């Protein structure tokens, strides 16, 4: 989808080293300095979880750790805010479909 901005009149984006994260088992490219949210959205993924009662899709809303719209299962831990969690090599990311469940 090419959502990474390549040309900008004011900002020079300095991408960190490329890392691979695994979204629902699928490898996706991300860069050091990305949050899980920025990496997923850059890869065209906008739905992060389902609401717990009506199972409506939810994605990023505030991007600063306030609103809980972006809770995901990250490295196996549910209820983790995708917007303030930095990516690392080999990180696993899953959509959260319920309130959080033990394996």
């Amino acid at each position: 989808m090419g959502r990474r901005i390549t040309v900008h009149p004011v900002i020079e984006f300095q991408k960190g080293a490329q890392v691979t994260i695994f979204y629902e088992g699928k490898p996706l490219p991300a860069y050091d300095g990305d949050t899980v949210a920025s990496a997923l959205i850059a890869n065209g993924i906008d739905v992060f979880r389902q609401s717990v009662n009506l199972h409506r899709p939810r994605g990023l809303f505030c991007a600063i750790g306030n609103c809980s719209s972006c809770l995901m299962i990250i490295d196996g831990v549910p209820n983790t805010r995708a917007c303030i969690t930095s990516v690392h090599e080999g990180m696993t990311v899953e959509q959260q479909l319920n309130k959080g469940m033990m394996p």
Partner: protein
Amino acid sequence: MTYDIIIVGGGIQGVATAYELAKRGAGKILLLEKTFLTGGSTGSCAAGIRAQFGSPFNVKLMARSLEIFENMAKELECDNDYLELWQGGYLVLAYSEAEFEGLKRNVEVQHTYGLKTNVLSVEEVKKAFPRVNVEGVYGATYHDRDGHADPFHVTFAYAEAGKRLGVEIREWTPVDTLLTENGKITGVRLQDGSSVYAERVLVCAGAWTTSLLKTVGIDLPLWGEKHEILITEPWERLLGPMVISFSRGYYIQQRPHGSFIMGIPPEDPRHWYRPDEFDFSSSIDFLLRMSSEATNVLPFLKGVNVVRQWAGLYEMTPDHHHAIGPLEDISGLWVAAGGSGHGFMFGPVMAEQLSKWMMGEPMDIDLRPLSPDRFKKGALVIEPAVVG
């Protein structure tokens, strides 16, 4: 304005009693609450309900209270989902041989009153509740009808049912003084200076009861003791029972909503008699002690975030039992307070029996041993199975 009965206090005790009295045709009832319904100890309690007590008296009362909780939705015309009734049992863990023996004696009492409490070996605990860490555990008891109900919704359901029967409820109406004339109660004066009158006044004001009774010269040995609670984010159902230890003091339960609610008593409880002394601030000491105990007993809690902690008051009496009934010194003045950490779970049965007492009907469970005058006579009632 003149009423038949004025009730002071909008917690479970006052509200449930208002309903039970109205149901028995007690006449015009006015309930006064200084903040909002559940604004005192009811709204800050841990929401647990259990019949696993040790004194025959408490077992009898709670066996009946559980029945009331089980039939409450129908009685109050709401549903169990609203009441958040969850009977996942209480798993009481023993951390020494002596404690286990004590629990077994309690179970014998419970069996006498028809409760089907089980005594579990460590192996049985491991098998039935694999998420519980049994390190240091000698055995446990488990009663499957114990559990949880939402203190807010239970109180609101009683309030709505009471209003349908004509109970008048005034929130944000603090009572300043009880009014008497020739040793007889006549009503209450409100903080705004106005007065309301009634032939009988029932004080159900939790830890605030002491200072109200003081306005008519009565000294009740009832004090507020600060206890703290925390609650986590909601998860899917991971834990059925309330896991509790009397010797270590902790209790941990997952609510129907999915959050885990838990508490542990203060190491150095402070006793307050006057409302201006009450302190509801939270402490980091509680948070750290509680988290460490909780993640030890239920290791999976390590991955669960705490969202909130708060403090509330146990309304304590010298023998940790209610002070309930009429006061000898002032005719027409009644009190129902002093739940000593169990006010919410006892609320429904106390309301039922007290209303019968006030209406001159025979009580199914005689509450007279809990008379508020027992303290000056030295007639205390003893309960072995308590936290803190």
